[in-house]
């Protein structure tokens, strides 16, 4: 694929405002054919990268949400047991029934198998890999290096196409060095005011440049408060949509509405209690 400027433009066209670093990372993904590991706080827009990438490539997005206890049968493949049992009943006594029921016809694809068998390379999003167990991570390592899987009854299934793989992690568990080394690394931080303004403009219909800038500055201020849950980009977009829906053109004109709608940003009771009308007023004072 092309250079990073073209990639940044293509991502922007699909609604994702990327910084130059991320555009470089994506161009390297294509060049070196390595997975991209995105790390960062929850809500900074890691998952969105994969979605935007899928739009850029006009490719299917296959998402594997990781969780504790995720195993191969949920991630890779499963047999269709109901059909297998019916077939066994129907062909009772047949010698070759075992071969028949463990064939392609009875195989159910799960995200990972689907990702390597698509004729056109999809974007495979392995979301929150840090939630999965060590064993699953080790299994993934094999898949990501060889792009083939072994199914005991069918043998080795090589990849038809190599998917564009994006892994995300919130850092709740330390990932293995082996997995990290397999991937390109990018740390996703909260966007600065300029980028967040452009994100609001790109994603929220009806947002004016001046209001978007005010919102971005206000959110930056809120993030600096001592909060249990720091608002992410999605919360910013919700808040912007709410303000526009309530016909707010300038934050200074409607301080009460601003304070009331902060529920879009503050997601715990404690945080809500901490940001009093006075705090909102103080933060508003810093927004030019």
């Amino acid at each position, binding site marked *: 694929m092309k250079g*990073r400027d073209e990639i940044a433009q293509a991502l922007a066209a699909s609604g994702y405002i990327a910084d*130059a*670093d991320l555009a*470089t*990372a994506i161009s*390297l993904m294509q*060049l*070196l*054919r*390595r997975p*991209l590991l995105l*790390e960062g*706080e929850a809500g900074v827009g890691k998952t969105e990268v994969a979605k935007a990438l899928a739009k850029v490539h006009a490719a299917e997005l296959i998402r594997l949400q990781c969780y*504790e*206890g995720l195993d191969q*049968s949920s991630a890779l493949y499963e*047999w269709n*047991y109901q059909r*297998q*049992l019916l077939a*066994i*009943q129907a062909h*009772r*006594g047949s010698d070759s*029934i*075992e071969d028949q*029921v463990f064939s392609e016809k009875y195989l159910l694809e799960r995200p990972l198998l689907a990702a390597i068998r698509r004729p056109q390379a999809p974007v495979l999003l392995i979301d929150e890999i840090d939630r999965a*167990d060590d064993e699953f991570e080790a299994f993934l390592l094999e898949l990501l*290096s*060889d*792009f083939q899987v072994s199914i005991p009854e069918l043998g080795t299934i090589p990849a038809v196409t*190599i998917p564009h793989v994006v892994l995300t992690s*919130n*850092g*709740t*568990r*330390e990932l293995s*060095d082996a997995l*990290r*080394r*397999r*991937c*390109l*690394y*990018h*740390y996703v*931080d909260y966007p600065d005011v300029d980028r967040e303004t452009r994100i609001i403009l790109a994603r929220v219909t009806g947002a004016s440049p001046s209001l978007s800038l005010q919102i971005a500055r206000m959110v930056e201020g809120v993030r600096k408060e001592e909060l*249990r849950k720091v608002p992410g980009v999605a919360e910013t977009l919700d808040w912007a949509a709410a303000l526009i829906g309530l016909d707010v053109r300038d934050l200074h004109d409607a301080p009460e509405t601003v304070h009331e709608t902060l529920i879009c940003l503050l997601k715990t009771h404690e945080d809500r209690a901490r940001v009093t009308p006075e705090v909102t007023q103080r933060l508003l004072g810093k927004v030019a």
Partner: protein
Amino acid sequence: MSCCGSSPEYDDLDEVSKLVSAKLAGFLRTLRDAGFRVGLAEGQDAATLMSAGYVAKPGLLRAAFKHLFSARKSDWDRFDGLFDAFWLGKRVRSRSRTSGSTPGAGNPSLKSLQDRSAEQGGSHSVTDQLPSSDDAPEGRSGEGRMEGASRADNLADVDFRKLGDPAQVAQAHEAAAQLAKAMRTRLTRRDLARRRGYRLDLRRTIHRNISHGGVPISLVKRRRKDKPLRLVVLLDASGSMSMYTSVFLRFIHGVLDQFREAEALLFHTRLAYVSDAMKEKDAGRALDRLSIMAQGAGGGTKIGESLQTFNRWHAARVIHSRSCVMIVSDGYETGDAALLGREMAALHRRCRRIVWLNPMMAWQGYTPEARGIKAALPHVDLYAPANSLQSLRALEPYLARL
């Protein structure tokens, strides 16, 4: 795929001069010296990038190498400085740009601790009893059995602060390490006994029952996954705890060595993440390193502030739903007791259990009157004395139930 284990094919690098290749090799060496895990595959990919035209644009090359060679946030933060120093001859920035989510080098509290210890000469330990590398014997084999028990038994009920001569202290250290080992072994055995499966493994069941026409006569159960308990130890290293700190440090070293998942932090007026220092195999060296990190003790205990730092910067990474947080402290809070209560409540929401070990509980006539311990107790699942080997041993059945 680029990440196979083969060596770099320098023949492919015709257009890259030998000088640049040598420079790249030098850079890889610099990165390895700085603790980056850079393998042959990364070197090969770096060469590919250079021959793909990146070498002509230093800014782009730096960004590309950053993605390729970094594997974690700490690498990410340090990379630009290393790159500029090597390729552009600039000075390396000594401090990382951001701090917070990654504990360790960039952690502000740890940094301040290290700075302070450096100012003080960084020479000797927080307590006089802390052993040097020579007089702390390494835990012997024993495979989880208390082989040193005969020697340790007469120490079992002795309060740690009454341990007199260095030989006794060393014995207590060894016994504490062996106790940690024994605990790990027994907990594992219980895990194994509990691991009988309860969910059906349909694939194996169908395989086994094909001869019965598919009627599932013989069932195969899935094995239950071994889910290890994670122990997070927060040790008070303040002046009032100084008589106990050294034995607990040895115990924690044993715990970190033996438990598959364990983390340790020290606090007094600040909090320091010490798991990495504790993972040092040589117990003596680990304790020497820790004694330097724990310098600054004696000024008071800000448990609330330390817990706040823990909740904010460390909890998301070190705590999961099967975590037991063990706080070893006398609960003498010199800071804000209300803050301690709030932070304990926040911590309690995150973890499975909070165990508070207070060495002073075993003292005659002791009642938890200190403001700190009063604020903390409502959020504690187990409040127990821990002033002797016997009291540490008594904890094991409780931990086994977690």
